[in-house]
């Protein structure tokens, strides 16, 4: 049992923290790639910017400015500082629900990003700045994992993390493997390793597929791998298991909606066949996965947060 508002806040902490981490990684890969002046490098920059949802790919010509804005522009809703501020604001609203150890980690990141000297630190070493932020976000999750009760609240937080992650990786894959919109297929070795880096997947990929960079393997790995924590299939496994934990805590019997959607999506990815996906077209498949994720989000709200009062009043 927990307050509906609290569950909502914990869920959004998870989403914002995951979003911030993903944006840091995209920026980092973009800055690192564009140290080279190759055509592949500018392709990587365009992929990164499209994946963060910035339609203005002209910014790929000035990757440093784009990364700076993505990191520290307070007025941009999609920037890292905005995500961190919102995660922390949500954490403040449920400060009684998260342990001091966990709160401190997040507050520390917030204080560093909002420090008047943050711009200077970014200028002095932008990749170091991003790297440290990612490391601190890992510490936040680790502190939560090690000190918070793994009950209902924790499940809501992780639901936020995995739903967000599934959607972010899905958008990245759409940019890279989606057809149409006069996009050239990504085939360059450098560009492909960069894509894996954006999903924090390079080293785990090498272990499975060796250094052979095949677009098809990359799609398979990020979409369908069973064990890699950033594959969409892995995310849906986690979403399903945290939803059933929440339903168990709530003492709700049977199917309440979101768990049915989550189970169906997990099964679709578990038994998916890459050849069929390629015949059907990766775009259509990915779009369908993203729609299902959005539906799980809505259904979660209907079941636990914004339910109708009339159904729940004591007789």
């Amino acid at each position, binding site marked *: *049992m*927990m*307050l*509906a*508002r*609290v*569950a909502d806040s914990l869920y959004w902490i998870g989403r914002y923290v995951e979003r911030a981490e993903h944006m840091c990684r995209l920026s980092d890969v973009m800055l690192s790639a564009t140290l080279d002046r190759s055509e592949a490098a500018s392709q990587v920059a365009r992929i990164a910017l499209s994946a963060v949802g910035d339609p203005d790919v002209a910014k790929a010509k000035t990757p440093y400015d784009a990364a700076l804005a993505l990191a520290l522009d307070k007025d941009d809703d999609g920037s890292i500082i905005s995500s961190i501020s919102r995660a922390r*604001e949500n954490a*403040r*609203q*449920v*400060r*009684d*629900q998260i342990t*001091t150890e966990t*709160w*401190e980690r997040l*507050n*520390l990141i917030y*204080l560093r990003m909002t420090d008047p000297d943050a711009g200077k630190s970014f200028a002095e070493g932008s990749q170091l700045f991003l790297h440290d932020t990612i490391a601190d976000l890992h510490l936040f999750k680790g502190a939560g994992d090690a000190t918070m009760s793994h009950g*209902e609240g924790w499940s*809501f937080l992780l639901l936020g993390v995995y739903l967000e992650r599934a959607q972010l990786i899905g958008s990245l894959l759409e940019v890279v493997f989606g057809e149409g919109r006069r996009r050239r297929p990504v085939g360059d070795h450098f560009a492909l390793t960069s894509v894996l880096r954006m999903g924090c997947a390079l080293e785990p990929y090498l272990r499975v597929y060796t250094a052979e960079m095949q677009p098809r393997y990359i799609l398979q790995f990020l979409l369908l791998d069973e064990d890699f924590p950033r594959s969409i299939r892995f995310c849906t496994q986690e979403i399903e298991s945290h939803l059933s934990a*929440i339903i168990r805590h*709530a*003492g*709700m019997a049977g199917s309440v909606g979101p768990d049915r959607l989550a189970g169906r999506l997990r099964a679709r990815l578990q038994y998916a066949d890459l050849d069929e996906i390629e015949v059907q077209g990766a775009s259509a498949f990915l779009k369908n996965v993203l729609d299902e994720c959005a539906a799980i989000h809505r259904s979660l709200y209907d079941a*636990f*947060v914004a*339910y109708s*009062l009339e159904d*729940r*009043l*004591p007789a």
Partner: protein
Amino acid sequence: MSVKRDDPALETPSPAAVAPATPYDEMLTPDGRVRPHYAALDARLSTLSPDELAERQRTQERFFLLQGITFTVYGAESSTERIIPTDILPRIIAAAEWARIEAGLTQRLRALNMFLADIYSEQQILMDGVVPRELVLNAPSYRREMQNLYVPHKAYANVCGSDLIRQENGEFAVLEDNLRVPSGVSYMLANREASRRVFPGTFRASGVRSIDRYPDLLLTTLKSMAADWRPNPQVVVLTPGVYNSAYYEHAYLARLMGVPLVEGRDLVVHDNMVYMRTTTGLRRIDVIYRRVDDDFIDPLTFRRDSSLGAAGLFNAYRAGNVVICNAPGTGVADDKAVYAYVPEIIKYYLGEDAILPNIETYLCREKSQLSHVLANLDKLVVKAVGASGGYGMLVGPHSTKAQQAEFAEALRADPENYIAQPTIQLSTAPCLIDHAVEARHVDLRPFILSGEKIVVTPGALTRVALKKGSLVVNSSQGGGSKDTWVLSDGKGDRT
């Protein structure tokens, strides 16, 4: 390093003002020797260089910042969070002195709860003419709605934070009672957590009494207010929300008590029962420790434009299905005009003399007292009855002629709204100011809980006027805080 004495004569603005008495020094006797209960701290201080002290001060400030013990300053373009100024040097109170404070506070709160029970039922004290009837019934904080409403144990003020000051003669006196929604207890606890880190050795050697049980005692007090037939009462803390300046405290207390922190929007009243919206539906609430003012708890009963409480809450309370702590309407007993009658109130109900004296108070509503106040505006402190937080206040000796004229006009226009008290030189305690130890004026806010029984926590929030010579300790006016060590008398009385 040496401790500088504050010379009050330097602070006197006009020669017309009577030279104020020398303030009591918490650490040093008038002939400059260190008082025995400060000896351990003094010894420790003499071994620390100014840089080491400053380093400890920074560590403490960082601790507060990391914990999020901050308040938000709203600016034109952006808002920033600041910590409440905190001082690392503890204020120390000897065991015998504390025993007297504890007895005095217990007595006072017992009498004030009896007073509230009386004026909200038979009104015997008004009929006997001990307190003027119109003074009570016309006070804005008097709540007609509370008349004849059952309050368990007659405990109206479950959490009380009284402001004490130490007068020039060394005696503690009550400056103000806070019976509405007193705050500051989280600073008491946070300052303690910090000072244990800053002076661990001295802390251990001094035998400081523990205040760690406050959240537990608060929960026990709140549970004791629930109806007997509800065996496992659900307690919640009601906060106005994250934008309230005391939000940190609300979340802190909820976390340490292990109860939900709710906002008005989480509450639903149905059939005179109060529920909160949880992930699994509605759950009944028995006791609400509300940190929302009377005016805002129920738009149906009090202010209509409020969304901080829940519609129908007060009726649920009247019906006995939920308990609101503190009870609405307790403010009438800490009204600045009623304050003047507290010694008589204690005598009336308990047949005892007040253990802790009041500060002499002139009620401007009385003609003779008004003329005395007008003639002595340069010596007195004048306070508006309805104001708090150090606003609406004239500190005579530190005021200009123009300010005095302004207050004189206000006093004549609305005498009922003002009281006056002599300017008391609050006692001074050593504080770390810019790498040096200097004396600053302090007050003392202990916290008293009352449910089935009354408990005084052996500790307090010591508020500091950080500006040299200033007597205003409110955090909204440049005040800070520090830890308060209450020493045990060595007989194992560690509660």
